[in-house]
């Protein structure tokens, strides 16, 4: 159980960390204006496109990774255990 917790936490922190770095490059207007969540540039070059794609991917990786390890996998285990109990009791 604690294994799943630290995996989820590592996914969340690692993903958001990468997201923060890409956001610092591409979606930050300035130090004293909007940081990290400013407008996405309209016509990025090829590297900008790759970076923005990675930014989105890392964000959803963090969210879905945490949900997977903290909710889905434990729920699946509980469901399987409940199913096994029901089968053995019948």
């Amino acid at each position, binding site marked *: 159980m604690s*294994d799943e917790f630290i995996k989820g936490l590592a996914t969340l922190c690692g993903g958001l960390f990468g997201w*923060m*770095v890409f956001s*610092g*490059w591409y979606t*930050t207007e*300035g*130090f*004293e204006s909007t940081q990290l969540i400013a407008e996405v540039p309209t016509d990025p070059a090829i590297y900008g496109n790759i970076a923005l794609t990675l930014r989105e991917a890392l964000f959803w990786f963090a969210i879905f990774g945490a949900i997977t390890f903290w909710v889905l996998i434990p729920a699946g285990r509980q469901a399987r255990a409940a199913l096994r109990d029901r089968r053995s009791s019948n």
Partner: protein
Amino acid sequence: MTDTTNTEDTTDATEEVAADGAGIVAPDDETPTWRERKERRQGLSRLTYEYFERSRREDQDLRTESSYVERDVLAFPTWPHEMIRNLSLTSFFVGLILFLAAALPPHLGAPADPSTTPAIILPDWYLYWSFGLLKLGPLNPDLAILGGQKLMKDATYGVLANLVVVGFIALVPFLNKGSARRPVEQPFWSAVGVFGVVFAVMISGLSIKNLWPAWVNVHLLFDMTFLLPFVAGFITYAILKAMREGYMFELNRRYYRLRPPR
């Protein structure tokens, strides 16, 4: 091997000192079973397991070699155990700093202009609580005997409030020496701590009351600054008081007692 620190035993020559450490080896139920060894087969769990198993083994060997009778100090050796752990943690955070310094674009602002005063003047965020105490003007009473005048200026009142808070913090170590290992052991002082933390956060929020967005009701914020700490303190006290029933005071005391060798 003679135990020179123990005068009672050296004078009594007939009674042999148990210097082989036979009585202080970890009892058998602390040794992992073969099933437990097999279950941790791979990857990080295997590594962690081997690390702790080796530590346990070395601790057991040290206890076996020890001339202390009933040594009750539970600890790992500094080298390698503590140092390996500390070095890995240190490397991780140094790596994080290096990565951030290399990967995040640096901000080089305009040079400071000493000839103009900025519109917003604030202390650093960790001094907001003190800054907030300077804004307690509404609490400075208008005295009837002075004809509705105030005894001192609001600024003086705020500075005195700082003295009260700092004085209380300085007083706490004399009231409670902090021998509790867990909040449940002293619910009242834990509640006092939570009171202080919530009050610090709220008074910090109050100190920047002119910067909050419009939906924040500043008068409500002012009231909450003095109400919420009491609420949080009472809730903490109630919860910890309720937790005392299941808390194993004896077990905790046994783990943290460092008894010198007899």
